[in-house]
């Protein structure tokens, strides 16, 4: 995906020039600054969707309009059939409406305008209506002139149809735009990548909404959760979208545009250079290779995974699929998702973590609302993750069957979350063995040598890592939970969140210990917490000897650059020193000094 630079946009549009600049605040959905014209999709009130089309998009847009005509006609015919039998006048009026739909002043005119003016169907239709109005305005007779209301009614039916078809993300913007809507689906967000979309704004959603997740993995700037943005922002208006700070400036002044351009210039220079790294190997100057893989939550993120040159998927959070519908996904649905991922990335590995949710979250989908009243005083320490899978075995077996079946199509790795006991692991292995036997008996293909690994995210697993390592094919350290559990900090609690410190030496020593235990048994150790994608912290992790860092896709080039500019000796040296630190403050100081000495001007944090 080409990264677009921030350009000034002249305020040539008469209708926006008179508006006062206004700044609105939302939540940062995905970093980046862009300036461009807004296109408000699915607007409420009478704010019309208007955008210019590129030439190639014209036939498809005309087709979309004709489909809307067909649908509106069907709608009117259905309505008419309810009147059949009496009221011949009413029927005649409805016939006249049906006829208006296909009248050359509407149908041909709109289709021509789409082509001649290169504008979208809604816009062309409103222009056609305007032309009809001009004709009607000349009518002296009031009764006939008022029939324009009928024309408006017919056009409103068409606009309704168009906006329903508008559920699909529009295609073929002639100029780069910022799209605005109540919300976007993950599929919309993926489409934006191939369209000339600079970024997007939504009313709904937070940082964890699916569209935001994908925007981040694609590197598409976004601000989400901006109240009433679809009403406050007008199509055609120039806006600044600041995805770093979650801000939107409507009708900005030239000075504001210049200021944001400068902000962006700095970020941009950096990421432009980073693009060079996408296709380079992830290795140090002295040839130490570290796999940089991707964390994803939804299958649509695969685009970003491939774009940013990830060495496979280090963590697919399989909870996606369990909360999409009211019922639990069946084996086929899960298998389909896993198979697609494995095939898309073959021969790179795809690591899929088994269900990592709390019982309360799944209660409504489980038969009999099983855990609806599960009231846990301490959900983080309660019935969740692998513990739930072992308790609700049919759920677990369904997922294992889907995973094993998908393993026949590429390199799939099964990752078991929250393992805290050897016996727990053994129980899982037994179930896996049973499922494999079932599949063999049924003649269903799977990879009998499929790799099974565990998340090391509970302090007891770190302590027992040497024992556990002998039982599995790989480790993946989940630092998000490991930090919470080992420092006894709930990062969601504002009073103590500050103490959540990934650079606490205790955390780093646990990582180091896990790596050593894994390597002693000859297995690979990965790390898939958020800290893996933080260029400030990555040098320590690389120095600790991890074989794989898994992060959000867009962070991969950043970490790769860091890796390619250093040597394994420097990294190990740094890690050795840091392991001796007494607290997070000391670790930070050392890291600061290291980055100043090794990475020069680009010490920015992601």
């Amino acid at each position, binding site marked *: 995906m080409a990264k677009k630079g921030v350009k000034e946009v002249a305020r040539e549009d008469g209708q926006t020039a008179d508006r006062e600049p206004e700044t609105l605040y939302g939540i940062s959905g995905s970093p980046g600054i862009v300036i461009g014209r807004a296109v408000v999709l699915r607007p409420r009130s009478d704010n019309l969707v208007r955008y210019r089309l590129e030439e190639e998009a014209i036939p498809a847009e005309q087709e979309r309009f004709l489909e809307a005509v067909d649908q509106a006609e069907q709608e009117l015919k259905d*309505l008419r059939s*309810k*009147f059949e039998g009496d*009221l011949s*006048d*009413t029927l*005649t*009026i*409805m*016939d*006249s409406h049906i*006829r*208006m739909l296909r*009248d*050359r*002043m*509407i149908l041909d005119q709109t289709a021509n305008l789409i082509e001649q003016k290169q504008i979208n169907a809604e816009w062309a239709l409103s222009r056609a209506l305007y032309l*009809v109005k001009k*004709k*009607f305005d*000349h*009518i*002296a*007779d009031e*009764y*006939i*002139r008022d*029939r324009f*209301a*009928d*024309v408006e009614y017919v056009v409103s039916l068409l606009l309704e149809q168009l906006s329903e078809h508008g559920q699909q993300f529009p295609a073929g913007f002639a100029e780069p735009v910022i799209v605005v809507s109540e919300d976007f689906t993950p599929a919309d967000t993926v489409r934006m990548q191939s369209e000339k979309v600079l970024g997007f704004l939504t009313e709904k959603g937070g940082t964890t909404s699916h569209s935001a997740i994908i925007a981040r993995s694609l590197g598409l700037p976004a601000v989400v959760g901006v109240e009433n943005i679809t009403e406050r922002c007008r199509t055609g208006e120039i806006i600044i979208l600041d995805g770093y700070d979650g801000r939107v400036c409507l009708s900005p002044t030239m000075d504001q545009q210049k200021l944001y351009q400068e902000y962006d210039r700095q970020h941009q220079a950096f990421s432009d250079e980073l693009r060079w790294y996408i296709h380079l190997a992830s290795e140090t100057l002295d040839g130490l290779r570290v796999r940089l893989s991707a964390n994803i939550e939804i299958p649509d993120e695969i685009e970003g995974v491939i774009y940013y040159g990830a060495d496979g998927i280090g963590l697919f959070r399989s909870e996606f699929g369990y909360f999409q519908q009211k019922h639990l996904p069946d084996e086929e649905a899960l298998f389909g998702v896993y198979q697609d991922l494995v095939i898309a990335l073959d021969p790179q590995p795809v690591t899929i973590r088994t269900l990592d949710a709390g019982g309360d979250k799944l209660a409504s989908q489980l038969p009999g609302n099983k855990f609806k009243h599960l009231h846990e005083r301490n959900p983080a320490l309660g019935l969740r993750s692998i513990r739930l899978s072992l308790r609700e075995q049919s759920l677990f077996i369904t997922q294992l069957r889907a995973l094993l079946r998908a393993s026949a199509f590429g390199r799939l790795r099964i990752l078991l979350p929250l393992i805290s006991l050897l016996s727990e692991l053994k129980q899982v292995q037994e179930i896996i063995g049973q499922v494999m036997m079932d599949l063999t008996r049924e003649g269903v293909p799977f990879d009998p040598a499929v790799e099974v690994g565990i998340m090391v995210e509970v302090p007891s697993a770190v302590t027992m890592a040497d024992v556990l390592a002998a039982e599995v094919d790989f480790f993946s350290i989940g630092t998000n939970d490991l930090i919470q559990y080992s420092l006894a900090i709930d990062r969601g609690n504002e009073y103590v969140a500050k103490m959540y410190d990934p650079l606490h030496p205790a955390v780093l020593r646990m990582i180091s210990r896990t790596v050593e235990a894994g390597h002693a048994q000859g297995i690979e150790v990965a790390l898939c917490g958020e800290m893996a994608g933080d260029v400030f912290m990555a040098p320590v992790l690389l120095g600790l000897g991890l074989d794989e860092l898994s992060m959000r896709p867009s962070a991969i080039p950043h970490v790769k650059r860091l890796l390619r500019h250093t040597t394994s000796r420097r990294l190990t040296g740094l890690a050795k020193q840091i392991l001796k630190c007494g607290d997070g403050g000391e670790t930070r100081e050392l890291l600061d000094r290291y980055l100043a000495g090794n990475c020069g001007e680009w010490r920015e944090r992601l």
Partner: protein
Amino acid sequence: MKTVSWESTVTNPDGVHCRVAERLIKVIDEHEATVRIINQGQPVDCTSILELLSLALVQGSRVQFTARGPDADQVVAAVDQVLSEPEPDQNAPARMRMQQEALQE
């Protein structure tokens, strides 16, 4: 091909509005003939309801027609009949809209 030209006077009280225009097009459709209205020298095809409406043919308007096609003779009478039909119900458009709302409920 046979061509007939004639002049007709609109006698229905509200002129050529939606229903009349609709009936006119329908009636013409039933015949094998192309009917045109000569309006200020410009021939207008009687196939577009919006163009018919925008001609603003009120009661008493005199309209120049041409018909071309095998049914040209028959279509003259049919057109004249539509243009002189009495209007049974003048409030039909308003009523129809009400019923539509009633249906949606």
